[in-house]
């Protein structure tokens, strides 16, 4: 009996299945099944019984109670969405700016880069942020006082100046808010700087040379070359920033507390699904808006 030998492509495909098999296994066991189960729990109430738990179907009771009885959930949800909408553009703009800055040649650049990536290491955890705030709250009496005072004063003068020059108060508030939260923004833009920097490195220098010969200034070549070339990365960073700001905020705390302190698993699952739908909606809208402007070189 002759069996037709496999072509190289088929062979490679089987190797591909082999290589991805841990992932496929994990995807089914630790992602897809839990996702389905979570949806099922959100439609029911879980009761702990001896040696396990019982699932009682309740329809949309959890979802309705979420928006009618629950005092915390709608408020926290709105708050975290607003924080996200305010922070993400700032993070993107700042990280692009920082990446362009760090991409230039100057003395002490390795040091500056090392410092700029430090937040990736220090502030990627929720604990670090938690303890800064608790420390400022408690320790401000002794130490932080002078710093705090001058910070408020500075942005106050800045806002006065901008208001007088005729900017609308909304924009002024936004900018001064950004200045006040500079640490928060810097500390959450480490990965984004890294992605932008890697992208900037991959822009071919010949483009800049050609534009320089044609007489373009640095400003022009930024908007005509650098910016269009990094638009795909803006999309990547947008998705990353949105998921990242959402993965460490108040609403997650609320969901975890509902599950493991109140032991209302059904309600917690419903919360997380509403939250997930919000994230998905925001992602879809923003990606839809941005991706039309994205420029692909090849």
């Amino acid at each position: 009996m002759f069996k037709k030998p496999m072509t190289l492509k088929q062979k490679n495909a089987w190797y591909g299945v082999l290589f991805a098999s841990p992932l496929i296994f994990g995807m089914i066991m630790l992602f897809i099944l839990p996702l389905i189960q979570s949806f099922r729990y959100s439609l029911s109430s879980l009761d702990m019984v001896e040696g396990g738990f019982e699932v009682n179907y309740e329809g949309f009771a959890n979802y309705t109670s979420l928006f009618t009885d629950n005092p915390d959930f709608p408020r926290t949800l709105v708050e975290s969405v607003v924080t996200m909408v305010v922070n993400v553009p700032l993070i993107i703009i700042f990280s692009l700016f920082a990446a362009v800055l760090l991409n230039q040649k100057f003395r002490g650049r390795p040091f500056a880069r090392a410092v700029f990536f430090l937040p990736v290491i220090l502030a990627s955890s929720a604990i670090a942020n938690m303890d800064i705030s608790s420390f400022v709250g408690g320790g401000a009496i002794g130490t932080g006082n002078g710093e705090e005072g001058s910070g408020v004063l500075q942005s106050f003068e800045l806002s006065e100046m901008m208001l007088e020059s005729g900017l609308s108060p909304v924009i002024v508030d936004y900018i001064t808010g950004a200045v006040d939260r500079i640490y928060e923004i810097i500390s959450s833009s480490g990965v984004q700087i890294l992605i932008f920097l890697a992208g900037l490195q991959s822009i071919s220098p010949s483009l800049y040379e050609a534009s320089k010969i044609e007489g373009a200034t640095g400003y022009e070549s930024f908007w005509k070359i650098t910016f269009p070339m990094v638009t795909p990365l803006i999309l990547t960073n947008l998705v990353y920033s949105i998921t990242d700001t959402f993965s460490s905020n108040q609403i997650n705390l609320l969901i975890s507390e509902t599950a493991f302190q109140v032991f209302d698993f059904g309600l917690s699952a419903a919360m997380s699904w509403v939250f997930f739908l919000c994230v998905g909606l925001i992602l879809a809208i923003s990606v839809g808006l941005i991706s039309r402007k994205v420029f692909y070189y090849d």
Partner: protein
Amino acid sequence: MKSPAAYADLFVRRYNPVDRTKGLVWTVIRTVLVLGFCFVILFPLFLRISIAFRSKVDIYDPTVLWIPRHFTLENFKIAMEASNYFTAFLHTVYISSSTTIIQMASCTLAAYAFARLRFKGSGILFILVIFTIVVPPQTIMIPLYLTYRYFDLFGLIQLFTGKKGLNLIDTFWPFIISAGTAMGLKNGLYIYIFRQFFRGIPKEVEEAALVDGAGVLRTFFRIMLPNAVPAIITVLLFSFVWQWNDSYYVSLFLKQVKVLSTSLMDMGVGLKEPDPVYTSMLLNTGVLLTIAPLLVMYLFVQRYFVESVERTGITG
């Protein structure tokens, strides 16, 4: 003799004052900005270090700004005792290093399959991988907890032992299993990075290896991995650090066993210190103790890390 105008022309051509001033101004602005941002990043860290060495007397002394007057290591001692530092430290090292190595293996393998060894449905699978980044971990939190609480491989364990699954809570197995199946902390991102990187390596290299008689495995280990060193360094550092700092999965799967991030959370309660300011000072010391190993590591690794970033070439 040349006219003054000609001299001026010569001067402009030789020294180019406008461009020079522009360059100089930009250098100054850039230096100020870079220094400013560096200051903003480093300031809280320096403040923490300065406060950690202060004794109780110095808290209410307004003349102490940076250098403590009564230098002491008392805070470190109390914080270490309150958080069981050495056991927690060992646990954290075990978890971080084991998951880092295991998920490196599973992620590179999967990423190579996505980049070069396409099979039917690999596109859909990759979309699902991206989906894992987007779905908040809270959504699958409870089922995941219950999966590990009554761990059972498709009912096999119940079949053989008759028990209703194994209780894997408070062991390290949940971390190892998630890492081995590339479903650990932010693994979707790592797969994405590696896939982009593998796709950037020219196909000719692999073809040459094939012509020389290397199989898929050999090509992967001898050609692809050595070429992907920059991406590997970046991902190694990320996964180690994020696992180290993670408090979410750790507090989900480990209720009794303490690691650094969770022992830090309990420390404030365990201190029984009446003075809230001193408590926050001790907490600050605890944070410093948690991140100190990372800082030391970063000091050694940062050179390779910063270099590797340039060559990672993550693109959209």
